[in-house]
């Protein structure tokens, strides 16, 4: 295999279209469709006594108003996406609530009108009579269970799971030092700049449903819609066109709109579109992050961690459609890059009257990282040791792989780290960081992380060389800005010896590739990247077989390069890939454009049928990649110098360094963009953003005026050092990188602020106000 594109800073192929304003996001499509608005619960917890839509239905321009009673799936519980044997009390919401609402923003009725303006007018006219019930807001209050979110879920607990490695109790008892901490993270949200949108058309003649959805998983939406509407899955197509950011919540399905919009389109016989606005995005789309950890740990005089006992509660929100994934991930990889010989972790997944949670960039990992890194800093502080030295003494060594943490992983197997060199990552980060600048109130922040990436079950890809010699490739997973069109083109171009501009990648369109899982958990590059390589390799093999016949050479002596199939070592003997593509499809009719050479009336170099035994027409192939249970494990170290203004408590980043290892890198430019963006989201979540619920369960800051997403002025440039330890688990040796930027930021900032101000940090996010209080 030639490796000229793999590893190169290839400029993105998708950019020009986006830069010219020719992007195609869901709301850009479907002009003239009916538009919709939801009636949403203003209460966090209430009984619904009645819903009266008479006035709304009578408003001119209103086409339909649906309540639960009006739709056949009104009483259906939306699916539990990821069941788990220890999820003893799963609950999912109904498409439209009819008896009880359990969070402010829960959908109650759905209006379809000639325009969104009219739909909002009508939504204002729907009268719902509520009887407010007591709201359970924080995870701590939920744990007290003074009030229940679901009357039939005792203690508000969806699950209570304990795992243990070694003998924690006796190791704690024996340890020469023992400390306790209570570490708290608040609720936050991903907030992609494009909110969600769904547009559906029903073709009554063909009996075909086509849905455009700003989703991270079109293949799953397709499967679900087919089942729900009783259609053959071959009659349902779901397309994620350009998606304006995802970061996790767009992997959630089904959202009520994903059923109601297609339903309305089928029922009304007109295209229907719903575009979420920012206000509803704040409460209707899943959140994450709130977790409270009680940590008890013991260590020896040298700073070696001997035992770690963590008991944490996860704020699940009102329902658990995404199962236990978030607390499972925290629990599984909390020990991070360190050897923790005795580890016990218990979590409870608790219901609250808030928006449900699902993974948001990092997905439970920032929490685990925060806990273990706070532990490392606490050990250093207690023993008066250097913080880097304490980490060095506890890190796993390069010879320790594969390393089993002893906890269960999100794919149902055990968490086993495949490869890495953590001491080297720490060294690289500190080396690049350099000496501490002069001045007061400057802190050194340090945090290391691991990230299980590239979980299965599988992804696939289809690659085809067109008769023009251009290549089209497709995969089921959609892109939300990660540059799939470029990195997959690089992989394919390498295998086929063509230039990257000749490869057009389509992703997230079930018409082009119907199989797959979704874009999440930093799995796109690993899963679809390897599937692309497999498919392209199969195409290359076929090209050689077809060309061998015509070049009268042995296929083994051929190679693909420069857009040709050629005989190695004899430059004159070659066939352009375009010609091979034509030859791969024996024809009866010639259409011009060179394909007369493929007609059955042309003399052929070999006897036998035009299509050789076992061969299929067309220069195309499908490839899949499905790893055995287990993940590739990326890792890294964030280090920074930070100044805290002693008067205003603003942060000033003097230097921010990321040393990271995500195996072999397909495109460093894109990777660095992912990391910079991840760090920005981490800083945002650690010092600017939070979701402020009041006692009644009202989200108090549901706007960009008050949810303080940082601007360019708040985010520093990040310096990066790459280390590549190839993953042994997949042919390309890659590990995922989508979340690496975000995971350790909260831990790193806590470490830096603690160092700068000399106050202990046990919580995130912080803000100047809180730092002021802590220093009093």
């Amino acid at each position, binding site marked *: 295999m030639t490796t000229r594109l793999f590893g190169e800073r290839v400029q993105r192929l998708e950019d020009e279209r986006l830069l010219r304003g020719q992007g195609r996001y869901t709301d850009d499509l479907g002009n003239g469709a009916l538009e919709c608005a939801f009636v949403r619960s203003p209460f966090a917890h209430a009984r619904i006594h009645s819903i009266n839509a008479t006035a709304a239905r009578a408003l001119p321009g209103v086409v339909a108003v649906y309540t639960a009673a009006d739709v056949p799936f009104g009483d259906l519980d939306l699916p539990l996406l990821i069941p788990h044997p220890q999820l003893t009390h799963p609950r999912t919401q109904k498409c439209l609530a009819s008896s009880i609402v359990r969070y402010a923003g829960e959908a109650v009725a759905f209006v379809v009108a000639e325009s969104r303006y009219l739909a909002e007018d009508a939504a204002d006219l729907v009268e719902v009579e509520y009887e407010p019930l007591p709201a359970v807001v924080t995870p701590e209050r939920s744990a007290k269970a003074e009030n229940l979110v679901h009357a039939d879920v005792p203690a508000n607990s969806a699950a209570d799971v304990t795992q243990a490695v070694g003998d924690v109790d006796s190791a704690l008892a024996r340890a020469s030092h023992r400390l306790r901490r209570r570490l708290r993270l608040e609720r936050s949200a991903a907030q992609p700049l494009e909110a969600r949108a769904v547009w559906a058309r029903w073709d009554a003649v063909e009996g075909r449903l086509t849905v455009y959805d700003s989703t991270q998983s079109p293949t799953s939406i397709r499967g679900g819609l087919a089942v729900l509407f009783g259609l053959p899955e071959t009659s349902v197509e779901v397309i994620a066109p350009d998606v304006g950011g995802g970061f996790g919540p767009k992997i959630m399905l089904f959202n009520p709109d994903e059923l109601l919009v297609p339903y309305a389109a089928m029922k009304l016989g007109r295209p229907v579109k719903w575009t979420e606005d920012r206000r509803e995005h704040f409460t209707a789309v899943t959140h994450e992050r709130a977790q409270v950890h009680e940590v008890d740990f013991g260590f020896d005089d040298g700073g070696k961690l001997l035992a770690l006992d963590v008991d944490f509660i996860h704020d699940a929100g009102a329902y658990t459609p995404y199962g236990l994934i978030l607390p499972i991930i925290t629990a599984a990889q909390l020990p991070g890059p360190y050897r923790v010989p005795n580890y016990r972790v218990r979590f409870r997944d608790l219901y609250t009257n808030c928006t449900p949670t699902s993974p948001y960039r990092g997905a439970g990992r920032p929490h685990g990282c925060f806990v273990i890194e706070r532990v490392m800093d606490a050990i250093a502080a207690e023993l008066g040791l250097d913080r880097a030295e304490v980490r060095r003494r506890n890190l796993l060594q390069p010879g320790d792989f594969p390393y089993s943490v002893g906890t269960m992983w999100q794919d149902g197997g055990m968490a086993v780290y495949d490869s890495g060199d953590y001491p080297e990552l720490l060294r690289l980060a500190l080396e690049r960081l350099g000496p501490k600048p002069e001045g007061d109130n400057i802190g050194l922040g340090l945090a290391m992380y691991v990230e299980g990436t590239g979980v299965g079950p599988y992804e696939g890809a289809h690659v085809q060389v067109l008769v023009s010699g251009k290549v089209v490739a497709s995969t089921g997973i959609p892109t939300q800005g990660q540059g799939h069109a470029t990195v997959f083109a690089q992989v394919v171009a390498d295998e086929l010896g063509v230039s990257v501009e000749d490869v057009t990648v389509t992703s997230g369109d079930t018409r082009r590739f119907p199989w797959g899982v979704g874009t999440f958990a930093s799995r796109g590059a690993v899963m679809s990247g390897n599937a692309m390589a497999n498919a392209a390799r199969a195409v290359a093999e076929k090209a050689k077989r077809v060309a061998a016949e015509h070049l009268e050479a042995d296929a083994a002596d051929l190679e693909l390069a420069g857009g040709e199939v050629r005989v190695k070592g004899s430059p004159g003997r070659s066939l352009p890939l375009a010609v091979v593509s034509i030859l791969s499809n024996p024809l009866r009719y010639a259409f011009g454009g060179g394909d007369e050479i493929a007609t059955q009336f042309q003399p052929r170099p070999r006897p036998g049928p035009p299509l050789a035994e076992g061969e299929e027409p067309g220069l195309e192939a499908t490839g899949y990649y499905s790893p055995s249970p287990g993940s590739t494990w990326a890792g890294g170290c964030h280090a920074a110098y930070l100044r805290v203004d002693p008067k205003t408590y603003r942060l000033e980043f003097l230097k921010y360094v990321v040393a990271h290892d995500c195996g072999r890198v397909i495109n460093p430019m894109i990777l660095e963009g992912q990391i910079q963006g991840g760090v920005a989201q981490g800083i945002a979540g650690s010092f600017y953003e939070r979701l402020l619920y009041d006692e009644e369960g009202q989200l108090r800051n549901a706007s960009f005026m008050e949810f303080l997403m940082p601007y360019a002025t708040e985010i520093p440039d990040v310096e990066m050092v790459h280390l590549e330890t190839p993953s042994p688990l997949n042919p390309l040796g890659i590990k995922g990188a989508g979340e690496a930027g975000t995971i350790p930021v909260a831990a790193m900032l806590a470490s830096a602020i603690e160092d700068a101000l000399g106050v202990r940090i046990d919580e995130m996010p912080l803000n*100047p106000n809180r730092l002021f209080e802590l220093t009093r």
Partner: protein
Amino acid sequence: MKPPVFEYHAPASVGEAISLLGSLAEAKVLAGGQSLVPLLNFRLARPAHLVDINRLAELTKIYERDGGVAVGAVVRQAEAEVDPLLRERCPLLPLALRLVAHPVIRNRGTVCGSLAHADPASELCAALLVLDGRVTARSQRGERVIAAADFFRGTMDSVLEPDELLTEAWFPATAGPVAIAEEARRHGDFALAGAARAGDRLALFGVATRPLLADPADPTRGLEPSSEPECSPDFRLHLVKVLVERVMQA
């Protein structure tokens, strides 16, 4: 987030504008729209009529009068920010304007709209107060000039009557040192607290329901800031001291 139904009026003269305001019930003036349109989009404001003053050429001037500078109701914040006359006579105003939102917002937002909107954290309201400026309000009932000290009543509340159009604001020229400082969470945000100084006069903003004059020697006297998630009363008082120190050193 789409505006509710309203009737739209685009008068061509000030006279026409005030007669519309005098005759229509539940009418609102639309100036730069940078505060009003978000309120419409959230449906937090539901006026029956909008009187768009953006076509009133009469109100687009910045000119000298009575030992100060008058700024018409349709003067954009961005225009005032770079206006040579204001820079020379009322240098506090351009300084304050640079702290208002972002350049793109200032391209549309008006100086007078900011005053009429009376946000307690508004830099311009504090500037008007510390400079001891005035505004002119016109209605079918006549014209009145209101001193800054009498203009602001409470959170987004001024003495302006619904039928009145604020036609211009007047800022006296200053000779002594001027300065303005604020602390906001993000660049361009409304301030958690702010201080504006003109000579030995000091005004605070973002710390009460309206801008307040304060004693530079004891700026927090009598202040009872409310508690907000990003800012406890103690932190606010602390910030006031930090900011006052900063502006008094200028």
